[in-house]
């Protein structure tokens, strides 16, 4: 059973006035059917670039993205339409995801009209169905985005993604701009839909707690490179890469007695224009040694199916 979507040593470098910017390098992930993969990283780590490459909004400078094993740039027109049906995105900002001048019905119709051969009435039926699925009503189809709250707008965006019965939902920080009570509701809607429609999800976020709830497996990215990869429960309870540890501790739990982080990271996140040599995290890592400053660590797989790119871990700690 091969992956719906996979990336192979994917990389993207932008030419800017200040020199080459390595937004993403050597990223390989697999999205298996009915499986949810989380991608975690702070701003500037390349999450957005990864999304744009997957959604064909941008083309990679290294490596490639494959849809069911076939590189995207080789897809035929029909295959491309199939890909556009199978992979559906939901973005972070609900106020920017919906065209303010289109009624909800036409917003949801757009992907269907473009990529399916459904007739008008069939499309309208599908619109009503997905609106019900996300907890809205068919009546809402005739209203304009301005008449909905932030939470409701996000539900409409999810309905739009659901409409072409995708195999994989690409969720780019879908809840991070919502209040706690709305966030919980949307996360529940997503998990229900995932189970009901047997969807795979690629959940991109900066918040480990939300990823823990949503995902089976987690990939941690720092400055465009994968630093750790493994099952969600292990990553969130026994992180091995120092950055993952820092990220976990920085995801402050709602518990006053939670132990403070042993050794917090220092300094600023380096600029992707000038990524530090060797292990990119060495400038902030409390355990950094000479080898970290010169040699880039390889991600070595471990028995639990995860992998860590850290000299200390690969050498069994020091």
């Amino acid at each position, binding site marked *: 059973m091969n992956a719906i979507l996979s990336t192979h040593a994917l990389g993207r470098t932008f030419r800017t006035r200040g020199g080459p910017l390595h937004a993403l390098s050597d990223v390989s992930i697999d999205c298996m059917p009915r499986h949810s993969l989380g991608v975690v990283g702070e701003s500037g780590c390349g999450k957005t670039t990864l999304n*744009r490459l997957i*959604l*064909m*909004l941008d083309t990679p400078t290294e490596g490639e993205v494959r849809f069911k094993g076939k590189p995207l740039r080789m897809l035929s027109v029909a295959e*491309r*339409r199939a890909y*556009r049906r199978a992979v559906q*995105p939901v*973005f*972070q*900002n609900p106020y*920017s*995801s*919906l*065209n*303010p*001048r*289109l009624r909800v019905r036409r*917003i949801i119709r*757009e*992907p269907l009209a*473009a*990529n399916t051969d459904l007739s008008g009435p069939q499309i309208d039926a599908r619109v009503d169905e997905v609106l019900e699925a996300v907890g809205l009503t068919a009546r809402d189809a005739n209203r304009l985005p301005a008449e909905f709250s932030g939470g409701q707008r996000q539900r409409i965006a999810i309905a*739009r993604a659901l409409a072409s019965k995708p195999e994989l939902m690409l969720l780019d920080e879908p809840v991070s701009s919502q209040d706690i009570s709305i966030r919980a509701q949307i996360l529940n809607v997503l998990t229900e839909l995932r189970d009901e429609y047997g969807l795979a999800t690629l959940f991109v976020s900066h918040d480990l707690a939300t990823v823990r709830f949503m995902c089976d497996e987690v990939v941690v990215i720092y400055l465009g490179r994968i630093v750790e990869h493994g099952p969600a429960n292990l990553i969130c309870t026994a992180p091995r890469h120092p950055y993952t540890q820092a990220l976990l501790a920085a995801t402050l739990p709602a518990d006053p007695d939670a132990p403070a982080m042993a050794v917090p990271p220092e300094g600023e996140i380096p600029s992707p224009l000038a990524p530090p040599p060797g292990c990119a995290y060495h400038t902030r890592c409390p355990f950094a040694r000479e080898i970290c400053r010169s040699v880039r660590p390889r991600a070595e797989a471990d028995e639990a199916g995860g992998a860590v790119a850290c000299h200390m871990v690969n050498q069994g700690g020091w």
Partner: protein
Amino acid sequence: MQNVTFRAALVLLALFVLTAVFGPYLVEHDPLKGSLRARLEPPLWAGGTSEHLLGTDRLGRDMLARIVSGARISLTVCVVVIAIAGSIGTALGMLSGYVGGWLDRVLMRLVDLALSLPVILLALLVGAVSGPSFGNIVLVISLVLWSQYARMARGETLRVKNEDYVDLARTSGLGHVRIIARHILPNIAPALIVVATLQVGVVIVLEASLSFLGVGVPPPNPSWGSMVADGRSYVVTAWWVSLFPGIAILLVVMAVNIVGDALTDRINPALRGRTA
């Protein structure tokens, strides 16, 4: 305070458009026919006769009739200029904002050049080439004013292009043309409407200056601008010849600017004032 003036301005604008469209049928005098004997007659309350409520001009033609038909001509000049300048400017601005890169730089340089065109000198040259005519004026004014639409359309297109719903449309495989037509144009239209309203004033006043230099709307049909220009040497002896069209211009431009500003605040406050 704000919405009282806004409503007043709307009423004024409506009056302007109605006068322009239906006016000529309501007024009994022919704006082009006059009797030399009844030349430069003052308005009724300043010693004139009820025959000519607002007095007569230097060829004895009825001022009221001329202002009414002048409204139509001035409005037509505005509408045509806005149509030409608007469409060219919006198209180029959208293209430059959407495509970006070297095309964007070239077009923006063109906009700067257009902004720095001495429109009056150009009008003079074109007027001299083929004689002042309605077509020439409209062409010359549009040649300069399109740049304001281009600048606004480009800015707005850049803003809308970065919205998620455009990315969503592209991931659904929509072509560039469909994306521009369905997502970009409807969302930048309000800002362009504001530029159009604010430009009505600029066009009318510019046409008046061209008439002053003899390359305005050709006689005998009156535009407000040419009426003010014709009346300039009677400022003391027959003040009403240029005063009434002057006041008409004043009211319309004020109304247009108040409506324009109000629309700006309602649509996108960040645009306020950017339509300098």
